[in-house]
């Protein structure tokens, strides 16, 4: 087991009100979320001495403008002018989970005391994924001429292979999307405020078969943030802490431009989860509640299977029969997932993992939670995994 288990905790969390269009500059969203997280901790802004984010704009073909389409660490430092800042970083791999892990390491190293991590997501005007113009350069020369555009199609091909290889039916996915929306209606910060029915799902238009509209999260403008600190400091703050029992990151990647195979996604998820299980000492059977990245619904399948919650090919059967309800055996994406909050990437999943472990999830709180698992972004993308616990051990 990891010698540093439960030495770091997440205290406060904060959100901006996500909107469909970019009416308010992204920097204002990020600032709002960071202030809310600090206030939720019971800290004052001058207490914050560490900053970390992963700023990438996943929409392709749009200008990257700091404060407008991304919120870099430099941007946040300039806005906050923190008098006691001692550490900061902007990560470039494994998405926002990597920034949370770096903040953890900095706290363990003693180079800061209270670190804030935020994720701000921009929804640009026009088409989210702009394909190359008349010419296709670099790795795109082998995909764009055939009409392969954004990530959705690459998720779709992997999902089609999974469905046909395992003789499964996409209609079973209705259970996941309908249940997650039901959870999301109990989350005051969710973007969607109306129920989703099985019929809505089954009748929705195809985007890239086998993915339909409700298999895809909706791009939004918004930000969320968390405060991390050492366990002894966290105990003196306002909210009950969620202790970090272990984490992992994806260790399998393909070279640039190579079309990722389904088996590669699974290896990515397995490698991250294995680190998390061995560091924490827990197994999938010990988990009381799970958040698994759902930018596309199919990512939840690869998560459930590669993390070890069920066998390969069985995830769409595993989620049936009430198992993922709040009172089920494995309550799943209890905040509604990205499918309910909009595309804020994995920090929302981490926040919900924290709230469930610390008993602060309100109306959607799962009973008797101790072990709270988070797959912060899909193995299909850039995976990280975490376990938070209520009781240090």
């Amino acid at each position, binding site marked *: 087991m990891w010698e540093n288990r439960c030495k770091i905790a997440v205290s406060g969390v904060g959100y901006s009100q996500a909107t469909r269009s970019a009416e308010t500059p992204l920097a204002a969203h990020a600032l709002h979320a960071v202030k809310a997280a600090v206030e939720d901790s019971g800290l004052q802004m001058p207490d914050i001495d560490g900053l970390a984010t992963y700023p990438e704009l996943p929409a392709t073909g749009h200008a990257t403008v700091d404060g407008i389409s991304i919120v870099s660490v430099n941007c946040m430092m300039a806005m906050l002018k923190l008098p006691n800042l001692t550490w900061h970083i902007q990560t470039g791999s494994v998405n926002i989970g990597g920034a949370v892990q770096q903040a953890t390491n900095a706290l363990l190293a003693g180079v800061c005391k209270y670190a804030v991590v935020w994720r701000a997501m921009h929804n640009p005007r026009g*088409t*989210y*994924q702009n*394909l*190359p*113009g*008349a*010419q*296709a*350069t*670099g*790795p*795109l*020369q*082998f*995909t*764009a*001429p*055939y*009409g*392969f*555009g*954004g990530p*959705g*199609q690459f998720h*779709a*091909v*992997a999902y*089609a*292979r999974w469905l*046909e*290889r395992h003789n499964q039916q996409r209609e079973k996915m209705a259970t996941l999307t309908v249940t997650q929306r039901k959870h999301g209606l109990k989350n005051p910060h969710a973007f969607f405020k109306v129920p989703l029915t099985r019929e809505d799902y089954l009748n929705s*238009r*195809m*985007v*890239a*078969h*086998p*993915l339909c509209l409700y298999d895809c999260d909706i791009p939004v403008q918004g930000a969320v943030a968390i405060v991390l600190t050492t366990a002894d400091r966290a105990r003196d703050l306002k909210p009950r802490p969620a202790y970090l029992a272990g984490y992992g990151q994806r260790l399998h990647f*393909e*070279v*640039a*431009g*190579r*079309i990722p*195979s*389904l088996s590669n996604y699974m290896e990515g998820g397995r490698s991250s989860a294995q680190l998390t299980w061995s560091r924490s000492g827990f197994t999938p059977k010990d988990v009381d509640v799970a958040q698994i990245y759902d930018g596309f619904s199919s990512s939840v399948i690869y998560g459930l299977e590669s993390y070890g919650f069920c066998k390969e090919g069985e995830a769409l059967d595993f989620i049936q029969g009430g198992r993922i309800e709040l009172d089920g055996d494995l309550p799943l994406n209890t905040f509604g997932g990205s499918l309910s909050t909009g595309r804020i990437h994995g920090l929302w999943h981490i926040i919900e993992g924290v709230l469930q472990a610390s008993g602060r999830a309100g109306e959607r709180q799962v009973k008797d939670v101790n072990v709270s698992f988070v797959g912060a972004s899909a193995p299909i993308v850039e995976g990280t995994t975490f376990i938070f616990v209520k009781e240090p051990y």
Partner: protein
Amino acid sequence: MTMSDWSKVTRPVPVPNEWTKPFWDAAKQGVLALQRCQACKHFQHPPYATCVNCISTDLRFEPVAGHGAIYAYTIMYHTGDKRFAAAVPYASIIVELDDAPGALLAANLLEAPYTEAKVGRRVEVMFEKLNEEITLPQFRLARTEVGA
């Protein structure tokens, strides 16, 4: 009718670079050629600086037969890219070649209804000329069985 109408589609034109030029030079001659590691004999695609199998840098392009199976596919309905909107719905497929296991090629399934795209279906290479410089390898359902 489930045939996709490609006649009004203007495809983005590939721009060869120092790694990929031999691939496009071969395609222009109606030959599918992939990068092969001379140390471990592994085929790979797209071209890269090193062998993805053994990290050797001794890589050369060699012709492959162009027979394979659909590894995965999607039927595109979304019309976000207006250049492809006229062909919707259409099948974008990922092909795994018999000669080059693990080297996955993107393509469209041509000369067949898009509903014929299924994992495991046998396909064979064909070529679609885009301009004087660039010819795209494409795939259709197999008409000749390997060894026949």
